[in-house]
Structure formats: structure tokens, C-alpha cells
């Protein structure tokens, strides 16, 4: 079990879902993968497939239409998994929180592990958030073991 636990920290595969983001945070998420920040040196790979992903990155506030999509993506990810809410909108609903169609932050629909504040969140903060989420995954892996056996 030791080698699996240590490997988990070295290979977080992320999936990025933009709810109703203004694309500011999305651009910053993708900036993490560019040669300037190069998230792959920590083993971070953008997979775009919920069945392969370990960490779900969500940007933008949740509304009534995309809540279903977000739940669906979350449910398809195999345990242990973590969710990182990126940007003010994903954390709380941001400036859109009073809109008639907006439910609020991501945590209204799925459990969130790490909140990365900012408008937009900086790439350094996003990478930091993913690393924090990995710390939380250790506990989740332990719980998973308890449940299954």
C-alpha cells in the first residue's frame, strides 16, 4: 500500500470543467500546463475524461442547467477523488450569486475539498490548490479502504 500512496501524490490527473465561467479562470488553468508553469513536472496531466481523472477542477458558478452535468461528471470519477473550486465564482457564486438562475458556488451541488480564491485565480495558486487536494486524498483513500473491507 505504501508505494500506491506515494505514487498517488506524484501523479494527479486533472479534469477541467467550466460551469458558467467568464473564461478568465479557464485561461489561468490552461496557463498551468504551458511551458512557463509546466504542471507536468509534478505529474499533473489534463485528461478530459472523468473515468481517468483524480482531481476535478471547476471554474465558474453553478446554475440550474449545468448542475446536472457537474453531478454526472463527479459521479463518473473513481474514488479516491478530490474537487478543487477555482475562482471567486466557483467558491461562492461571485458577482453572479444574486442572479435568478444561479445556485451559488460549486459546493451547493458536490462536496468541495479545496477553495482557490481570486478573480482570476493565479496559476501558482491553482497548482498549490491541486497539491493541497492531494493531501486530502490520502484520508479519502483510508476511508475507501474501511468501507470496502
Amino acid at each position, binding site marked *: 500500500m505504501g508505494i500506491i500512496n506515494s505514487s498517488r501524490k506524484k*501523479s494527479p*490527473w486533472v479534469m477541467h470543467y467550466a460551469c458558467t465561467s467568464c473564461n478568465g479562470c479557464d485561461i489561468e488553468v490552461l496557463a498551468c500546463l504551458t511551458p512557463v508553469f509546466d504542471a507536468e513536472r509534478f505529474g499533473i496531466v489534463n485528461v478530459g475524461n472523468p*473515468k481517468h481523472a483524480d482531481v476535478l477542477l471547476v471554474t465558474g458558478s453553478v446554475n440550474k442547467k449545468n448542475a446536472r452535468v457537474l453531478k454526472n461528471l463527479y459521479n463518473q470519477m*473513481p474514488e479516491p477523488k478530490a474537487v478543487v473550486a477555482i475562482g471567486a465564482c466557483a467558491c461562492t457564486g461571485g458577482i453572479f450569486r444574486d442572479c435568478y438562475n444561479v445556485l451559488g458556488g460549486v459546493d451547493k451541488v458536490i462536496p468541495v475539498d479545496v477553495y482557490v480564491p481570486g478573480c482570476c485565480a493565479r496559476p501558482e495558486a491553482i497548482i498549490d490548490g491541486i497539491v493541497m487536494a492531494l493531501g486530502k486524498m490520502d484520508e479519502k483513500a483510508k476511508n475507501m479502504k474501511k468501507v470496502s473491507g
Partner: protein
Amino acid sequence: MMITDNALLNNIILAVVTIIVAPFLGGLLSGIDRKISARMQNRFGPPIFQPFFDVFKLLGKERIAVNQTQMVYAFGYLFFAVASLIMLVLKQDLLMLMFVLAFSNVSIIMGAMSVRSPYSKIGAQREIIQMMSYEPVLLLMVVGVYLTTKSFMIDSIFTHGQPLLYNLPLVFLAFIFILTIKLRKSPFDFSTSHHGHQELIKGLTTEFSGPQLAVIEVTHWYELVLLMGLIVLFFAKPLWVGILIALVCYFIEMVIDNISARVTWKWMLKASWIVGIGAAMTNIIWLYLK
């Protein structure tokens, strides 16, 4: 045929050593591939052991199976790839090796077809087209080897007087061409690839997750070692020259992977049939007339 007990024991030990060592070599090679690719893109790149971290992580994930047969197909993919690698190491029949290798690929296609995801199915169909493009070249390569050494056995390549390349230069070029398809590298990476694509997600492996994906990853490593081994056959004497040339070929594949965009399947089919089969056939006709 008489096989003494000692030879049999040697063969079994060789096969076991192959099963254990090949994934290490393959994983290391693909780790170096990722590192060098990152350096080519002016990035720092992941550690060389990154593929091993990925596989161990995948082994620790929750087991989600879409249906009961999926794991059987993933293991079929692994089993037939390992079988063909062992046939190479024990210097068995080259023609049979190609058939077993094709079986390995058919397993993964069946696995991808057994689920209802459209991405997976499109990936499987594209994989079939890829097989259509490279299988003729592989078979022509075997024919070329037979015309040169008068035997299908890999053993005869090693006992043959001179390296195969002297007689099969164009077949070798055709093989290098289809190597890109077989390694699923750009420009021919449209059934699945190491990067998620917008229109296809992950193609063939979309519906495989956790331990199943780990099995498929390990199979890729075995396949990689097998393909490098097939290159070595062209330069069998001395062996180290062959290994060196195989590594150079792999480096060329990395360069091609990084400088080219994906093409359509029609382009690939035309190119691999005209260039691949054309070159290999020319070589074989020349051998026949000689």
C-alpha cells in the same frame, strides 16, 4: 524435435526474465520519451519514473467496470502481447508472432466495442483502420525475411550470414513508417493517444479506468519493447548495434511526434498503403528477381 531438459529449463528461465524485465525497460523508455518530449517543448518535464507512478496510482483506484467482460479483454490484450514478446525472445516463428500480436490488438478493440460509449466505439473503429494500414506491411516484412533466410524462424535470422538490412532496406523503411502507427504517436494518434483530445476524449481507453487502465498501460510497455526488438532483428549481428539503432529509431519517432499534427484516417490509409506496401513490395520483387 529433441529438446534436452537443459534447453527447456533455459527457455523457461529466459521467458520468466523477459516477463519481469520487459515492463521495467518499457516503462523507463516511455518515461524518457515524456522527458525528452517535454525538453523539446521547452518544458522541464516529469520525472523519468513518472509512468510507474501513474500505473501504481491507477492500481489503487476504485474498480469501476462498465460490464463484466471488460477486464477479460484488457487481460487478453496483455496476455497476447506478452506471448508474442516471449516468442521473439525464444526466437520462435516470426509469422506466428505477427498473428499473436494481431490477436492482442483485436482484444483491445473488442473491449472498446463492448461498451456503449460512442467515443470508445469510434476509437475502436479507428483502431481497425490502423490495423488495416499496418498489418499488410508487417506480413510483407515476414515474407521478405522468408525470402532472405528461407525460414520463418527468428532463429534463422541470427544464424544467417549477414544482417537482414542488406537484403531488406526498403522493408525496413516501411517498418519505420508503420512504427508511428503502432506506437500511436502523432501524426497517427487518432485511435487513442497520450493526450486527451477534444473530439475523441481518449478513444479506445475512454471506458477503461483504474486497474484496467493500468493493465493497458503495462501492455503498452510490453508492446514497446517488442517493437524495439523487431527493429533489432534487422541488425541482429552484432546485437548491440541493433539495440543502438532501435533507440535511434525511437528518438526519431519522438521528433516526428512533436513536429507533426494529426492527419485524417484517409490520409493515413493512403500513405501507409502507397508508401508502406509500395516500398515493401518493391523490395520483395527485387529479392525475388535477384
